[in-house]
């Protein structure tokens, strides 16, 4: 009787152990929709960008290409600590992209207001938590530095995009710099 009970308990133990191991494996593989240990792109305010169906890149004559997405302007709502900046890493890339956004409040003086996490290929940033919110209404010069970053942490040639940053209140931008 005791032997039977012992083997029964042993069986239950093996069963529970198996369920726990399988669950851990499924979680690690992302099958259950969340991950443990590393941050998912969604946690970093990143969303998957629409896929392009017309892409056919086989690299240029000098090896693989890097695709940088530029834009010309974006708005910051006065007093807001978040901004919608169209930062994205093209799905055609095989490397991550890091973005740094700077604003010039005074001529020749640049202040970094946002540094993105590493943006995986095909992702874009949803809401950017900017470091300052005390801007006067107006239009300012901005720079967006996009730096391709490899898995080993090394970075490649940063590309600079000059943009205009509009600080508005209720969509109105009264004062011009």
């Amino acid at each position: 009787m005791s032997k039977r009970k012992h083997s029964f308990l042993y069986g239950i133990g093996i069963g529970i152990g198996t369920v726990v191991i399988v669950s851990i494996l499924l979680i690690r593989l992302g099958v259950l929709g969340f991950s443990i240990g590393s941050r998912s792109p969604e946690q970093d305010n990143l969303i998957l960008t629409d896929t392009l169906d017309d892409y056919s890149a086989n690299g240029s004559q000098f090896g693989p290409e890097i695709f940088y997405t530029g834009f010309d302007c974006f708005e910051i709502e006065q007093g807001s600590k978040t901004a919608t900046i169209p930062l994205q890493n093209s799905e055609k890339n095989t490397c991550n992209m890091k973005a740094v956004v700077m604003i010039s409040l005074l001529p020749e003086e640049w202040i970094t207001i946002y540094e993105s996490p590493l943006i995986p290929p095909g992702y874009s940033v949803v809401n950017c938590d900017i470091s300052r919110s005390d801007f006067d209404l107006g239009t300012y010069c901005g720079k967006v530095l996009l730096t391709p970053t490899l898995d080993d942490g090394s970075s490649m040639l940063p590309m600079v995009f000059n943009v205009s940053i509009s600080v508005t209140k209720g969509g109105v931008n009264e004062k011009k710099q």
Partner: protein
Amino acid sequence: MRKNSRRWLLMLLAVVFFQGAACSADMVKSVELVYNPAYNSTYEISVPTSLTVTDSNSTSLTISITKWTDFPKEKAIIMTLSEDNTMKLTNSSLEVPFEVYVGTTQYLEGDQLASYCPGSVALSGSSRVDIAVILIKIPNKPESSVQYTGQLKLEFSTQ
């Protein structure tokens, strides 16, 4: 007396008629319509990851626009040679100056290298357009045969 009253009546009618005509002219109001279209222009630039500079004059770097959205036909993408460029390839303390050409014209730091109006083709598109072929030249061959490396910094803006 009767004649007078008839004249008065005609005058009264004339006044009423012209007053009415004047009133109806005043009733026509025009509303000025103003439309300033808003554009959220984005564009995609393709740049080779690296370039091996050779001693020949044909080391070239092609910069392409591969995609653009919401571009009015007057707006251009401007590419400039960044003022941050040192225009030198280095190996620790050794330096080799390099020169940048587009065609036969030499460009210096801060110079505009190329401009392109994607919207002159279509408001949005995804066909590849080479906007500049940059030639990199080493004017003087260095004495030391070590490998020299450096960066060519480009800036993009719209106008």
